[in-house]
């Protein structure tokens, strides 16, 4: 016999994402999922963000890596609560991994929770987590064709940050081509140019984040 199923393959993940959403709402926490390829500047952006915000909002960080605690060590030096999760080979964080992390943290008094996802432009985009906003970084040396090659990632990002703009004198990068690709897959995405090295654009990013937290 043939039966109609019409069920999303990741519906089990989506159900847990809904639980995460409820848990975050319950504790009054705004959660940001930060995604990018390895080396685009996720940890550097986190450090810059924490520096500018730690006296204004109470921040907690979840660092997800396939292995090691190098990133968590860098972040915890800034004096914010940091939880390292190792995905043990998985290329992304799914709703269940985030749920386990959330359950193990007190989150008491936390205003802003930032998840640094596993460095990858494909898999993390597929898994709904139940967070408030998704942000992604694409860096100048990666090239201006990334929205065309990894459209799903760009389609789920509320903010797209182009990092390492201090390298523009040395690297070919066509902003027009890049932003056109982003607008086709995600016309609502907020596009920002930043440099974690010089600090350019970081204040704009932080203002955007604070404004989203108030919404």
């Amino acid at each position, binding site marked *: *016999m043939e039966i109609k199923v019409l069920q999303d393959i990741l519906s089990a993940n989506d159900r847990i994402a809904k639980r995460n959403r409820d848990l975050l709402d319950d504790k009054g926490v705004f959660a940001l999922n930060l995604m990018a390829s390895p080396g685009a500047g996720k940890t550097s952006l986190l450090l810059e963000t924490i520096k500018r915000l730690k006296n204004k909002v109470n921040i907690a960080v979840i660092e997800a890596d396939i292995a090691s605690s190098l990133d968590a060590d860098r972040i915890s030096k800034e004096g914010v609560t940091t939880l390292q999760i190792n995905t043990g080979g998985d290329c992304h964080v799914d709703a269940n991994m985030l749920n386990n992390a959330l359950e193990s943290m007190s989150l008491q008094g936390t205003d802003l929770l930032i998840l640094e996802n596993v460095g990858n432009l494909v898999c993390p985009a597929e898994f709904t987590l139940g967070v408030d906003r998704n942000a992604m970084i694409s860096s100048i040396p990666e090239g201006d064709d990334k929205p065309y090659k990894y459209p*799903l990632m760009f389609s789920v990002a509320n903010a797209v940050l182009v990092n390492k703009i201090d390298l523009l004198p040395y690297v070919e990068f066509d902003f027009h081509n890049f932003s056109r690709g982003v607008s086709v897959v995600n016309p609502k995405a907020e596009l920002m140019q930043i440099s974690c090295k010089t600090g350019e654009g970081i204040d704009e990013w932080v203002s955007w984040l604070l404004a989203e937290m108030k919404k």
Partner: protein
Amino acid sequence: MHELAITQNVLDIALEQAEKHDASKVTRINLVVGEMSGVVDECVQFYFEFLSKDTIASDATLSFERIPITAHCYDCDTTFPLAEFNWVCPNCQGSNIEVVAGRELYIDSMEME
């Protein structure tokens, strides 16, 4: 790499449906996969053979219907598949376009005995 998680979910849903319908064997699972999802069919097939061993779905055929990344032009109201490197409307050459399909990832139907 995310195919492992995706395949596990496909198998879980298939076995759940089979139990609900008192089936003794799952013979076919029809999947719909958008091109934007980055799912590699061969990879799902490989994991499925491994994961479904010793289940009533071990002999099931997986069928993949691929949905191309499709865009709509707001200037001339044309809907068209996106070419890999030229993201403009093929009708009016405009760039006021937006992706409208290609993110699908679901089980459409199943066959069981």
